[in-house]
């Protein structure tokens, strides 16, 4: 199994969820995060004190998939999450040696 970690723009979350659902991947865990990279932040002023907020709000998705589904999943995430502008985000894939469904104790691929 593989763990897909995708960092995307928050307003793309819906599109990605839908794309994954289309290929039968319904289990996803989402985490709010802040990203640093090429994309610039914004500026705020309070009584003349100027503040440059350098990070950008992002959402980190964790999706554990069967190795054979991995490529398909990555591709559909890329497709759904792309806007073509800086800051679209990244996808990282890492191997998963074991998975368990807590409710049933089922292991590995049955657990997904």
């Amino acid at each position: 199994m593989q763990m897909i970690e995708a960092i995307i723009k928050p307003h793309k979350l819906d599109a990605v969820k839908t794309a994954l659902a289309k290929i039968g991947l319904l289990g996803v865990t989402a985490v709010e995060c802040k990203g640093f990279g090429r994309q610039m932040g914004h500026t705020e002023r309070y009584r003349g004190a100027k503040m440059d907020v350098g990070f950008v709000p992002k959402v980190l998705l964790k999706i554990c998939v069967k190795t054979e589904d991995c490529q398909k999943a990555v591709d559909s995430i890329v497709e759904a999450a792309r806007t073509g502008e800086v800051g679209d985000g990244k996808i990282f894939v890492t191997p998963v040696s074991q998975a368990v469904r807590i409710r049933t104790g089922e292991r590995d691929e049955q657990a997904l």
Partner: protein
Amino acid sequence: MLRRLLASRATPMFLFALMLLAGGSPVHAAAVQPVEMLPLSNLSAGDTAWMMTSAALVLMMTGPGLALFYGGLVRRKNVLATMMQSFILMSVVSVVWAVIGYSLAFDAGNSFIGGLRFAFLREVGAAPAEYAPTIPHSLWMIYQLMFAIITPALICGAYAERMKFSAMLLFSIAWLLGVYCPMAHMVWGKGGLLNAWSGGQFAALDFAGGTVVHISSGVSALMCALMLGKRRGYGKVPMPPHSVVLSVVGAALLWVGWFGFNAGSALSASPLAVGAFVATHFAAATGALGWAFYEWLKSGKPTVLGAISGAVAGLVVITPASGYTTPMYALLMGLAGGVFCALTSTKLKHWLKYDDSLDAFGVHGAGGTLGAMLTGVFAVAAVNLPTAYAAPAGQVARLGWLEGNHVVMFNQLVATVLTWVIAIVGSLIILKIVDVLVGLRVGEEDEYDGLDLSQHGESGYNLEDAFSATFAGGGGATLLQEELQVVPAVSHH
């Protein structure tokens, strides 16, 4: 335990109460004259201005005052439901009051309850009633309504985070008619059993509602806490206030609004009102210091929650005395209230192991009781002398215990005990009935999810724009078609 005990004792206590009532009423029912109406020429613009302001201030105590104070003390998932309890009572009580509540409280009737002359606000118009000779009768009625609103709202503190909305409504309505109206009539109503100004048998001193408002609500709150039982997880998981910030704002508004509550009870823009205003402020001040310094000594840190709770405690204690005592005595009474309520809300509660969620009893029940007794101690004839204590010609009038008047202590005691009995019996009976009708508590799942979601289908805060604004269609928060035409939400399974 205590709960079962109380339940089992309900009936005998009730009978005892009935006897008490029976004892007095027939004798007096006859004697009481109807409430007199006075000519419009009596009206004073200055008094009318102040009393309209006071009525507005007292409403502000409930909303937003109490709604914020209580709303901040509950957990995030119950904030709206808790604020709603205060807000909806502003509505429900008003309707009941107009239909019959006011009449039961302030028509003459017997020593225990008023008649129906003022039902549907008949005869409640521009002409002043003898209760408040310089303002329109309808202003006196609406001013009293604001008291009738906040009293049941105070009880919410005890059943917060676990009572059904429907049960809370039924309980409040029944409690208003069954406990509040009789209490108001006995203490302030013409010919009331405890009314020191119009021939009550026991001339008790209660300027602005120590017994009627605070003891009655606080003791009833204790009954609610006992009957409903503890919140799930109480004592195991912590239940910290979700925003003491809101509570500080609420407490400050309560303090400000209380000027309308106490100084308004003079029913005129007079030196008496000013005296009550001053006493109120000083008691709130020392109440806050009392509680905060008690904590400082005991645990090394004065808490903000302690300071605001203490201010409220001081205000509760001074309420019955505000129009009868001096500024300096007020400083003492507030201090006593702050320390005393700190003890009842921490030590006593944990010792007796009931879950009075927001210390409605710890502050209002305990503080109200202390205040009723201290009022007897610190009352000063020179400040304000009820007809019942008028001195025989040539003799100097004595009002408070310190002035050498002992009978007042007895009357205060009677008033206090009677209020406790009526509150206990009335509340237990009403709670039992409501429990049978709709059930008092929400289910386990509902309590776990929180009352905002389970009772009202809302949440108090949607601060994560990312999540609330983007999880649409794909299973996140999404507008269903029913109401809005949207791209059909993808179904997941």
